[in-house]
């Protein structure tokens, strides 16, 4: 036998609360007002807007806006409705379902973890690979010009035309192995003692004096350039931008309303993701660079040699653990290169035969009138 329950009725026109009693019947909810008048709400026309969570009163609405509302303190009325009219009340919350909610939530948590791993490992790099070819080369060139303006300002470039032409010859020899690529490779040398080189998107390679002076032969420089050219040909900068955009969107989806709250965790995750993709790009540039040397019929041993040299100097100071680094572990890179290089090719093509490499690589040491920056004092 259905029991009468106390509730409040709001008519939607005034803020006055009317005490009523509710009775659950097989087809409708019977509402008896304090003055004895009554009304019936068929279950299939009742909307529930509150009461699906613990601690919420049950709020039932009926009719068009401004709708009539019933507020019942206990969810037991829902259990009773479901027992009395199961077919008509499917859209109303069933308190018995609350037990299952925890399981669903845990399932969702597991799903989130799997989806995040999937997006991180395959989704984001996949999106970047698919989208990168659609980015116009002119856009990359424009971006590249900005990078070069910043990293290699005109007044810091070493421009001895004769020697620069020789260096350029090396770059063009490598570029010739990719005749259909849409990039025009240009090389600039910056008067900076750091041992490093950059590839700007669109085809510009920036070589720092420190690295140039570290090379013992044109072939070693070719090893470095092959790696940097691959960054250009594989469109790594564009992919990085796409990966960061996709990663940010993904993290925004997770954080949603957590805006700010998860900021620290999210910044950490973003930085780690960026580093992970950066290492993947470096590995690709190594491998494809080596293939490029082989295609140009140059000796890949020189690439191994210059990497070896860099590893020696790296051992002198503490390198960060791999997961915190933009570059993969040097030992691992060397092992990959050695494995791929295989035996020395039978007829390696010599680069710049008969030239004095020691003279060419010192192009920044020569005072040229167009340069405002004085020669650096940290001579070896």
């Amino acid at each position, binding site marked *: 036998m259905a029991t009468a329950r106390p509730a409040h009725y709001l008519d939607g026109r005034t803020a006055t*609360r009317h*005490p009523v009693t509710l009775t659950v019947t097989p087809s409708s909810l019977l509402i008896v007002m304090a003055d004895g008048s009554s009304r019936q709400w068929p279950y299939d026309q009742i909307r529930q807007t509150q009461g699906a*969570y613990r601690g919420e009163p049950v709020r039932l609405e009926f009719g068009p806006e401004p709708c009539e509302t019933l507020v019942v303190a206990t969810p037991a009325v829902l259990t009773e409705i479901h027992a009395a009219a199961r077919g008509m009340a499917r859209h109303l919350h069933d308190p018995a379902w609350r037990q299952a909610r925890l399981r669903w*939530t845990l399932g969702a948590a597991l799903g989130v973890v799997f*989806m995040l791993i999937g997006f991180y490992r395959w989704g984001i790099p996949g999106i970047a690979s698919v989208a990168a070819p659609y980015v116009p080369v002119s856009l990359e060139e424009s971006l590249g010009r900005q990078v070069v303006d910043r990293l290699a300002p005109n007044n810091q470039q070493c421009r001895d035309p004769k020697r620069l032409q020789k260096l350029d010859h090396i770059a063009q020899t490598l570029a010739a192995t990719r005749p259909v690529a849409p990039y025009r490779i240009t090389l600039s040398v910056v008067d900076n003692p750091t041992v490093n080189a950059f590839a700007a998107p669109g085809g510009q390679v920036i070589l720092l004096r420190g690295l140039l002076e570290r090379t013992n032969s044109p072939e070693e420089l070719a090893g470095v350039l092959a790696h940097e050219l691959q960054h250009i040909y594989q469109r790594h900068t564009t992919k990085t931008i796409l990966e960061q955009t996709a990663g940010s969107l993904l993290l925004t989806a*997770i954080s949603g*309303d957590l805006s700010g*709250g998860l900021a*620290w965790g999210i910044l950490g995750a973003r930085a780690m993701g960026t580093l992970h993709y950066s290492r993947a790009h470096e590995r690709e540039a190594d491998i494809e660079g080596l293939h490029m040397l082989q295609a140009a019929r140059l000796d890949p041993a020189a690439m191994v040699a210059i990497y070896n040299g860099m590893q020696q100097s790296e051992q002198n100071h503490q390198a960060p653990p791999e997961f915190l680094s933009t570059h993969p572990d040097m030992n691992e890179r060397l092992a990959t290169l050695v494995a791929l290089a295989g035996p020395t090719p039978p007829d390696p093509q010599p680069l710049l035969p008969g030239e004095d490499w020691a003279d060419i690589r010192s192009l920044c040491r020569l005072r040229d009138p167009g340069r405002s920056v004085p020669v650096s004092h940290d001579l070896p």
Partner: protein
Amino acid sequence: MTTTPLSNETSHGTLAITCHRCQAQYRIRNAHRLTNASRSTCRTCGARFAVLTTAQPIDAGQTALHSLIEAQTPPAPDHSDRDQQHPSTMHGTFRGSGGTLLGMQIVNVCLTLITLGVYHFWGKAKIRRYLFSHTAFGSDRFAYHGTGKELSQGFLKAMLVFGLPYVSLGAAHSVLDLPRWVDLLSQALAGLVLFLYVPIATVNARRYRCARTSWRGIRFSFRGRTTEFLKLYARGWAFTFLTLGTYYPYFQTQRQAFLHAHTYFGNQRFGFTGHGSGIMLPFAVTLVSTYVVLGLCGLALAFQLTNAGLTLLLIPFVLGPLWIWLLGQKQKYFWDHTIFGEARFSSTITWQTLFTLYLGNIGLLMVTLGWAWPWVTVRNARFHIETLSLQGPVDLDRVLQDQVESSVTGEGLSNLLDTGFDMDT
């Protein structure tokens, strides 16, 4: 423990008591409901009240009186509700749970990822519905009527009106090689878009949220015009700059007055009685101290008495509490000057409690790397709602539903600006 005799019974079943500690007077309606287990505290001084009754059964006459009172004044659903003892004061309460919120958020993230982001708006509506459902004023819960569809449409609208111009102006700056004056012009325009976005979003988010919020079945509404708010905003910043910041408290008060005084509950309007001079002193103290601290830091750096990193790190620790103090003063001032009919809102925010709240929140978030967000939300909601009360006679029976939906769908530019959209603001 303060005691009061139950002898001063008045007519109509109400009971008058006086706190013996602070002499505050209270009336208890529905006195027949008091039992030996009832407990309460004095609103003014916090003294505790207990009830001692004789073990007499309620007689027939009292029952008749009971039903008579019920017919005149609808009873509250929560019998534990403290407000019954003092019907002319209503308090805010928040009873949401952080655990439930975290669970909801996990499910939301899962569905958002599966739908490639589309579900975000529905998830947000769900969270809001939960938060509103656990917020009560007096003994009645609020209800949120917004939907994910409306939130997504609002987002698209805002993206079209603000996001697109802003992003394209920014892209023009970074991608195209434009002549210098075009570049400067586009940057200035981007700045203008951003400047206009804040007031327009403030007004329209409020319009939307009010229209989708109800209490006792009556909707709230915001009827301020966007163009008027824009004027107020532009004038406010202009005067603030011209007066080197002195005008700022008046600007803030005007802004708050505009937002509060154009808000309606049904057909009844909220009012704002402040004019800004009340927060002038806290503001001046904060401003002068900020200038002094920054000046001292500048001097220390100029004479190289300390290193730059340490100084920059110390500034938030010195100025943070000061700005929190000002924020507390401001919020208290704004609420204390907001009225509804003859009743006045009152806030018990103090800078100490606000500071404790923020410190606790930051601690929680740092220790858990942000995962304590749901509990921080609950803490914030509880703090801001439970420091609020409405004191004085409120005749809720006179409040009528007033559908203003049609009044905001005018024509022309004001239509575009005044249709109400919601963004994360």
